[in-house]
């Protein structure tokens, strides 16, 4: 192994193509999982392309970043998907966007770019201008998969989820009323955020773009981005700022989980539960508005700290609202959990076995409901979490009910966290603006979003810019598990199973450039990817 730099939260290791598979296998056997990966066009610096694989090692409290490079004239590295299937999407993404080939990848099909995107054009290469418009090519309408017999019907679920009002497309293969297989096609709403940020935004503008990755858990993205830059540039963040960050991240988790409980009730046909949850959630929205000036998109994080302080009066008001929110949520949850008919719809449904969950690298409540004890707040403490007490709930049911119960426990842990933060808020500054940005320094920031681990990687660009920014939302890691959860289930359960990962389809689709005219062809056949790939 070559050069390695030791940072607190991560270690970047240059690996050779011959040893990468072995290293990955050992890490996986040691309890690590595939967090995310990115391709980088480093040609302006060294004439090479690079791939950064980020492997989360929760037990050791470190991310191992395996860096592979390949020369410009032969941009090809060995695929690690055959040893760790969690890498499948990240490698396909790097192939689409940067044009790195992964040798022996089982399915190096397009993942992100639309099917009428011309071959050989890679939008995240540095010589591709951010504002270039591409004329679409003919495109392949796709051939229907042949793996299903006459008795199997295919049922499209999409292009919008029936409830989540987000673009997604699942194709369910159904025999009688049973789902025998499922495919997923996403990435319909890529906005090219990475390119935009790298090309024409400044360091402290990007947090506001990052925050808009998700309409529900945006604060977690701006926090992860800021942390990544702070790691890269060695910025000391004042303690009070760290506490305020944790505060808003927990407020965000509470409202996000309450929202999800409401959605779950609605999907299960219990609309008054939906309304009760959302009624309780309003107090939490008021807290956010009081502290940050808005119900959503808090706009609180900047590199080096936070933008708004918290007065004693606001703390008192927040505590009052918190009590109302907690009391009401408790009452509603206790009653909902007491409803046998709801529990029966969730128990034993949408099973994701622990082994599959590990190999795919699912995160957050989905992982914790399949018996995996992981939580970025505890394993890689950031913001104020090192100082705070909280339990990480783990359930072993592997089903929708377990995912529900994990979120129930977490919600009340978060109420306690908010109280701890408000009671122990340290005095002092809220932002440190005295730092300088190094050139081409790597940084990784990760947070435990309501939906699981959220990872942002950056390479700094000096001059108040980033050279490369790669955000990875938790749903990116959870979605490939959904086809497995669907298999063997009733069609009627598909909506709640899909919703059980609390998916954020659009957040997953953060990266590409969608040209006018694309997306008209509904790609179907070749998408026997996800589940088929995973089943092998």
């Amino acid at each position, binding site marked *: 192994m070559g050069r390695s730099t030791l940072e607190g939260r991560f270690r970047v290791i240059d690996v050779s193509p011959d040893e990468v598979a072995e290293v990955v296998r050992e890490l996986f056997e040691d309890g690590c999982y595939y967090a995310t990966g990115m391709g980088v066009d480093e040609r302006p610096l060294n004439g090479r392309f690079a791939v950064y694989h980020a492997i989360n090692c929760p037990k050791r409290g470190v991310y191992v970043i395996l860096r592979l490079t390949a020369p410009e004239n032969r941009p090809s590295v060995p695929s690690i998907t055959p040893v760790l299937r969690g890498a499948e999407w990240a490698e396909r993404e790097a192939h689409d966007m940067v044009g790195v080939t992964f040798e022996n990848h089982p399915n190096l099909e397009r993942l992100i770019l639309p099917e009428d995107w011309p071959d050989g054009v890679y939008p995240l290469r540095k010589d591709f201008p951010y504002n270039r418009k591409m004329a679409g090519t003919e495109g392949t309408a796709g051939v229907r998969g042949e793996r299903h017999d006459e008795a199997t019907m295919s049922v499209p679920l999409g292009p919008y989820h029936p409830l989540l009002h987000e673009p997604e497309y699942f194709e369910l293969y159904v025999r009688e009323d049973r789902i025998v297989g499922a495919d997923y096609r996403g990435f319909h709403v890529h906005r090219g955020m990475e390119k935009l940020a790298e090309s024409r935004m400044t360091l402290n*503008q990007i947090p*506001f773009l990052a925050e808009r990755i998700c309409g529900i858990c945006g604060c977690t993205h701006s926090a992860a981005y800021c942390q990544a830059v702070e790691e890269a540039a060695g910025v000391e963040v004042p303690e009070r700022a760290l506490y305020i960050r944790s505060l808003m991240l927990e407020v965000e988790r509470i409202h996000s989980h309450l929202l999800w409980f409401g959605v779950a009730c609605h999907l299960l046909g219990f609309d*008054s539960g939906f309304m009760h949850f959302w009624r309780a959630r*309003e107090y939490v929205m008021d807290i956010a508005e*009081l502290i940050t*000036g*808005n119900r959503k*998109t808090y706009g609180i994080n900047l590199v080096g700290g936070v933008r*708004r302080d918290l007065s004693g009066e606001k703390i008192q008001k927040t505590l009052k609202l918190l009590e109302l929110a907690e009391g009401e949520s408790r009452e509603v949850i206790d009653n909902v959990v*007491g409803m046998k008919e709801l529990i029966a719809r969730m128990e034993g449904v949408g099973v994701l076995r622990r082994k599959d969950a590990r190999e795919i690298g699912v995160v957050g409540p989905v992982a914790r409901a399949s018996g995996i004890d992981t939580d970025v707040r505890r394993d890689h403490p950031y913001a104020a979490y090192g100082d705070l007490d909280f339990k990480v709930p783990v359930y072993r049911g592997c089903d929708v009910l377990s995912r529900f119960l994990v979120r129930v426990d977490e919600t009340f842990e978060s109420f306690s966290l908010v109280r701890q933060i408000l009671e122990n808020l340290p005095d002092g500054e809220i932002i440190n603006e005295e730092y300088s940005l190094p050139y081409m320094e790597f940084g990784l920031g990760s947070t435990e979003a309501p939906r699981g681990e959220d990872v942002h990687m950056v390479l700094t660009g000096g001059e108040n810019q980033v050279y490369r920014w790669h955000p990875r939302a938790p749903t990116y890691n959870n979605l490939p598990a959904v086809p497995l959860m669907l298999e063997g289930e009733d069609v009627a359960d598909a909506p709640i199973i899909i919703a059980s990962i609390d998916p954020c389809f659009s957040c997953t689709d953060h990266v590409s450039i969608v040209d006018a005219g694309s997306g008209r062809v509904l790609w179907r056949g070749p998408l026997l990817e996800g589940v088929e790939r995973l089943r092998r």
Partner: protein
Amino acid sequence: MGRIKLMGLAVSIGKVTERYPFAPVEVPDDYRGKPVIDPGICTGCGACASACPPQAIQVKEEGEFRVVHLFLGRCIFCGRCQDVCPEGAIRLTTEFELATPNHDDLHQFVRLRMVRCVRCGRPFDTYRHLVRSLREVPFIEGERLLLCPECRAKAPLDWLEGGGDGNEG
């Protein structure tokens, strides 16, 4: 029997839906609503425009004027402009009802007269910004501020001390 209890709860709580828009809703004093520029204070320095993430503020030069143009259709109500404005000229208000049939309601223009360079005659800064700068630099240096940046770079330092040709034109 969760279902029955929750039904009872709904009855005892009654209606929670706000009467809005038939009754006003309250927002906190430091709510992040519509940004407004005070045209009497703004110097046209452009700091807000450089900080604004979605480029909702643009500064353009139009002949004798510099125009600070705020377009609410792009604004994300982040308040970065307010953070960085050295004059306290731009502030976020608590106003949030911005829907309008008239596109013009979404634009604010601040027009500021420019100063011409005493040497080359090119308009290069707003009067107001120049006056501000004059207050902050020593007198000798201050007069050099009457030159546009290019001429300033060319002019020898002793220009104002009697050396060189101090004549205009």
